[in-house]
C-alpha cells in the first residue's frame, strides 16, 4: 500500500513537472497543492506566534513513566505563585516513580501531586527546584462561536490553531434534565402523545399520565421527541418547568420539577463510565478521559493526547482556558479560564482519594463491559475511502477495462 501511494505521488510529480514531495495523506493531491497548503500553514503559525508568547513561559512538559519509559505525557499550565501547575490527571495517575516538569528554557522541577479536581480531570502539582511564570486570568468572558483558539506549547511554536466549534457547555450526564416520559417518535405533529411514564420520574411526580398529549414545555410548543429534548437541554435537574397538555379534550397546565436520568431509563447509568468504555481500544492519540467535564468549549484544535493540559489563548494572548482532551477526529475540549480560576479557589481531593476512585471506576468499567452493551446509536458514517483499497480497485478496473477492450476488438475482427 505504501509503495503504491508513493508511486502515485511520483507520477503526479512527473506529469506536472514539479519535483516537490507529494502527499500521501490525500491520494490525488498534487505536489504544488501540498506545497501551497504547507506554506500557508507555516505562515499562519508564524502570524499567531506573538499571540501565544505571553503564555509560553507558563507552559511546561510533564514527564512521567506511565509504563513505556519516562517521557512527556502531558503539558502543564503554571498557576498561582509560579511553583504550581495544573495538568491532565488521567495521564499521570498511573505514573511510576517521580514526575518532573520541564520549561521551554530547560528549567526542570520535581513535581508532586497535591490535589486532584476529578470532574475536570486536572491535577494540581507542587513544583520544587524551579520558579516559573504563572498565567494571568485577564479576560474571562468565554469566547464566541468561530473565534480563533491557539494552543500553546513550551517552545514558542504553537501546537495548533482552531476555532470555537461549540460554545462552552456541560458534558456531565447529571446536568441533563429529564422529564421521564416515553412518547411517540413519529414525524412532527401537533403535540407529543405520552406512551408511558417512568416510575419515580419528574413526569410521574407531576401527575402526567399515559395518553396525555403534551402541547408545550416551558412555553415552547413541542411536536416531537427531539423538540422536547431540545427544550429540556436549557434546564438542569431540580429546575421547575411549566407543562401544558391535553387530557381527553381538557387542557391542563402544571409544573414539573425536572430530575436526572432515572436508573431504568435507556442509556448508561454513568457518563464517565461510557467514555471509559473505549479506554482499552487504544484509539491512537485520543485522551483516556475525554467526556463528562462540567464545562468545556468544543474546538477543532488538533491537540494530541500528550499535549493536553497546556494553556489555550485567543489572538490577543488572553488565556481562554486549558486544553483538557482530544476526543476524536473532529473534537478537542478546553476548560474555560473562568472555571479554572474558580476551581483554584476550591479544595481539591487528595491524590490517594482520586487514585482510589479511578481504580474503582476502572473495575466498574470492566464489569460494565462484560454486561451486554446497549446498541450503538445508528449514525450514518461518512464513507471512508480506504487508501490502499481504492488504489487496488482502480488498478484492477483499469486492467479489466483494457482486457475488455481487447476482447471487443477481437470480436469485431471476427465479425468482419
Amino acid at each position, binding site marked *: 500500500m505504501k509503495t503504491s501511494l508513493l508511486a502515485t505521488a511520483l*507520477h503526479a510529480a512527473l506529469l506536472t513537472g514539479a519535483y516537490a514531495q507529494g502527499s500521501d495523506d*490525500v491520494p490525488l493531491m498534487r505536489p504544488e497543492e501540498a506545497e501551497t497548503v504547507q*506554506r500557508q500553514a507555516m505562515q499562519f503559525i508564524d502570524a*499567531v506566534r506573538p499571540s501565544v508568547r505571553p503564555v509560553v513561559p507558563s507552559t511546561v512538559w510533564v514527564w512521567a513513566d506511565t509504563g513505556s519509559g519516562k517521557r512527556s505525557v502531558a503539558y502543564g499550565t503554571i498557576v498561582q505563585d509560579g511553583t504550581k501547575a495544573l495538568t491532565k490527571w488521567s495521564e499521570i495517575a498511573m505514573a511510576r516513580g517521580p514526575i518532573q516538569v520541564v520549561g521551554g528554557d530547560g528549567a526542570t522541577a520535581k513535581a508532586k501531586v497535591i490535589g486532584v479536581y476529578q470532574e475536570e480531570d486536572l491535577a494540581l502539582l507542587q513544583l520544587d527546584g524551579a520558579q516559573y511564570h504563572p498565567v494571568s486570568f485577564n479576560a474571562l468572558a468565554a469566547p464566541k462561536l*468561530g473565534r480563533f483558539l491557539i494552543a500553546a506549547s513550551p517552545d514558542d511554536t504553537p501546537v495548533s490553531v482552531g476555532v470555537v466549534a461549540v460554545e462552552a457547555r456541560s458534558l456531565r450526564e447529571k446536568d441533563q434534565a429529564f422529564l421521564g416520559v416515553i412518547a411517540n417518535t413519529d414525524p412532527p405533529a401537533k403535540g407529543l402523545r405520552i406512551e408511558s411514564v417512568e416510575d419515580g420520574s419528574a413526569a410521574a411526580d407531576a401527575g402526567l399520565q399515559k395518553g396525555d398529549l403534551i402541547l408545550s414545555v416551558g412555553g415552547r410548543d413541542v411536536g*416531537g421527541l427531539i423538540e422536547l429534548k431540545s427544550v429540556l437541554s436549557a434546564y438542569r435537574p431540580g429546575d421547575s418547568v411549566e407543562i401544558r397538555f391535553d387530557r381527553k379534550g381538557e387542557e391542563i397546565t402544571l409544573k414539573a420539577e425536572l430530575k436526572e436520568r432515572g436508573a431504568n431509563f435507556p442509556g448508561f447509568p454513568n457518563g464517565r463510565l461510557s467514555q471509559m468504555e473505549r479506554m482499552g481500544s487504544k484509539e491512537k492519540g485520543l485522551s483516556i478521559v475525554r467526556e463528562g467535564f462540567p464545562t468545556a468549549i468544543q474546538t477543532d484544535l488538533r491537540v494530541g493526547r500528550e499535549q493536553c493540559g497546556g494553556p489555550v489563548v485567543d489572538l490577543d494572548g488572553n488565556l481562554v482556558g486549558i486544553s483538557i482532551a482530544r476526543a476524536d477526529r*473532529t473534537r478537542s475540549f478546553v476548560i474555560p479560564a473562568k472555571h479554572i480560576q474558580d476551581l483554584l479557589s476550591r479544595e481539591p481531593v487528595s491524590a490517594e482519594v482520586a487514585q482510589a476512585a479511578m481504580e474503582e471506576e476502572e473495575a466498574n468499567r470492566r464489569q460494565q463491559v462484560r454486561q451486554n452493551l446497549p446498541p450503538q*446509536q445508528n449514525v450514518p458514517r461518512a464513507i471512508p*475511502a480506504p487508501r490502499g483499497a*481504492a488504489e487496488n480497485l482502480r488498478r484492477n478496473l483499469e486492467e479489466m477495462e483494457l482486457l475488455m477492450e481487447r476482447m471487443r476488438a477481437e470480436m469485431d475482427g471476427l465479425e468482419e
Partner: protein
Amino acid sequence: MAGAVLALASLQPVWSREPVGSVEDIRKLEAKIEAVAAKAMKSTVALISEESGASGSGVIVTADGLILTAAHVIEGAEAVTVVFPDGKQVKGKVLGANLSKDIGMVQMEDKGPWPFMERGESGPLEAGDWVIAMGHSTGFDPARTPPVRFGSVVSDGPGNFLTTDCTLIGGDSGGPLFDLDGKVVGINSSIGVSLKNNNHAGVDGFKEDWKRLIDGEVWGRLQMDPMANSERAVMGIELGGPVRGGGIVIAGVSEHASKAGLRPNDILVTVEGNKVRDGRALQLYLAKKQAGEKVKVGVLRGGNEKPVELEIELKQRNQIR
C-alpha cells in the same frame, strides 16, 4: 528555523488567497468566520430518516425551504424529519439525488419563509482557499449546536469533488461547506484516514443537475474511487503501451477524439506542455478535470509533433469504437 521559512515564503509569488501574514490578517479572517458561523447556524439542519433512524445534515438554500444534502444521506428514503439546531422539527420530502456526485435535495413541506444561505461557486476553489464546514457531527444532539470547523482546500478534484482539512465525521454528511462570504460551496461527503482527507461535493454539481434533482430523479452510483466514477472526465482515447523515450501509443480513439484530430497509432507525448510518462499519470491528471474543459496535447505522427486541442468529456458518453 522561522527565518528560513520566511525567506522561503518571500521567494514565492504574492498570495492570491486571503493573506495570513500578520495577526491583523488573521483578525479579519476571524471576523468573517464568526459572521458566517452565526448566520449559517439557522440554516444548518439535521436530516433524520424515519425508516432507518439515520441522521445526516443539510443546508437550506432558498426561502421556500429547499435543502441541499448528500445523496447517501437520503438514499432510499422518501421523507425525512428536518431538525433545526434549536430542536424544531418539520417534515421534508426527498427529491432527487445523483449518487455519482453524492448530491441530493430535500424540500420542506412548509414553504416558510426559512432562513437560508446563498449558493456560491465551487469551480474556482483551489488549494489554499479558506473554508468553513458545518454539520450535525455524530447525529443531532439537542445539547449542542452543529460544530463549526475551519480550514482550507487542500486539493481540488477529483471531478466535482474537493478535499479540505476541515475535519468531518459521521453525521456531518450532507452538511455545508462555506467560503468566507458565507456562500455554500460544497456538501460534506466522505473522509479518508488522514485529518487532511475530508471530501466535499462541489456545489457546481447541483447547477448542472438542477432540473433532474428538482424532478425527483435518482441516478448514478455511489463510488468513492474517482477512477471508477461513471461521471469522470476522459479524453476518449484507448491507451496502448508506453514508448521508450517518453509518450504512450494511442491504440484507439472515440468519435469525439477523432473529430478533435487524434488518430490511432499517434503517440501522446505531452499534456499541457508536460511530458506524459504513462497511462496512470495521465489518468490521475484527468481525474482532476471536469467534462467540458479544454486540454492541449502534443502527439507524434510520422516523426513530427502535432499540437491538438480537445475538450474532455464524460466517460459514460464516451464509447470507443
